[in-house]
């Protein structure tokens, strides 16, 4: 699985009442990324050439009509100010010494990624492998249990054959799974099918290598 690098940022735009006149102010806060990977944003004030970058969690830019001030804030302050829109944040990226790092295993908070299922195919065909039949059944249960969720069926191939052929095959695989779900009574409008060809192999291989684990369909819950 590919790690997804997420950047989280809060952008606040407010009108402040100061001594009888309203003043428009803005604030940009960089939040820690869900997986602890480095993240950043940059602010480009209107009419200015230079950008101001934020690269550390809880760095803040306070922006007014004629000023941009940088500073830092804290998780508590961000929560107080923005309440519900702030998700459960992972702890700030720890920077312990190497010794400490080897001693304690740092477990990052699990980002709320969409759930997904994997179905595998027989080489060059749209038939599911036997193990995947069982997974297919749990997908059906999931769809029945979550009446508001949308399901995206994403087809993939291994790297045998041309990209064009694989684009078509991956889409056929996705459409096959979608059609089967619909045939079993799942609602049409909640299931989408897309094909991604050989672009996103689960296992990296050279071109023209047959790899059963790449011949798959992912079902993502949105």
């Amino acid at each position, binding site marked *: 699985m590919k790690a*997804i*690098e*997420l*950047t*989280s*940022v*809060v*952008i*606040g*735009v*407010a*009108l402040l009442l100061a001594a009888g006149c309203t003043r*428009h102010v*803005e604030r*940009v806060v960089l*939040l820690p990324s*869900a997986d602890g990977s480095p993240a*950043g*944003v*940059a*602010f*480009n*004030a*209107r009419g*200015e050439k230079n*950008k101001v*970058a934020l690269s550390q969690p809880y760095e803040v830019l306070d*922006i*007014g*009509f004629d000023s941009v001030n940088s500073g830092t804030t804290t998780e508590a302050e961000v929560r107080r100010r*923005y*309440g*519900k*829109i*702030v*998700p459960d944040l992972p702890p700030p990226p720890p920077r312990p010494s190497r010794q400490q790092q080897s001693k304690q295993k740092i477990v990052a908070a699990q980002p709320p990624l*969409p759930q997904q299922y994997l179905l595998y195919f027989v080489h060059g065909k749209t038939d599911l492998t036997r193990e995947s039949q069982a997974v297919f059944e749990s997908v059906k249960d999931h769809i029945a249990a979550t009446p*508001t969720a*949308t399901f*995206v069926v*994403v087809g993939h191939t291994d790297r045998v054959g041309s990209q064009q052929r694989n*684009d078509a095959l991956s889409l056929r695989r996705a459409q096959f799974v979608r059609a089967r779900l619909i045939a079993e009574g799942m609602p049409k409008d909640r299931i989408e099918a*897309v*094909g*991604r*060809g050989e*672009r996103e192999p689960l296992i990296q291989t050279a071109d023209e290598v047959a790899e059963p684990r790449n011949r798959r369909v992912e079902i993502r819950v*949105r």
Partner: protein
Amino acid sequence: MLNIAAMMRQRKLAGALMAASLWLMSAQAWSQEEAGKLEIASGSVSVTRSNQTRPAQAGMQLRSGDRITTGSNGYAEITLLDETVLAMGPNSRMRISRFRFDPVTSAGSMLLTVIKGALRVTTGVIAQRTPEAVQIRTMLGTVGIPGKQFIVESRESD
């Protein structure tokens, strides 16, 4: 003379109307593009599309061009097609000014406009692939995601 002037005026008006309707049509085509879904809508949340504002419920599909507004007790959470997550606090308004995403190639771009209030953005696939294609505009400027490659030069001047 008066009649001619009136006719000219009429023609001008017709021309302007035609141009305006063409522009509207292209704007329409542009804004039809599906952008994502309203996942959570609590308190008062409304969506403005083609100048019509309607109360919005969770599950509603959002399109490029939609403006989303929350009231004093409102909270909204949106997932865009590239898995960008947006959370809006109370008394907030933002617009999905432009959103394009091709799920096959993962190519796309987005421009969000924060009009008032607070918006949390957790970037998705577009920002991961092409950070420069993600822009969030405010009245005073633009927030962008810097690319992952850059050059830092440090040297003594001659």
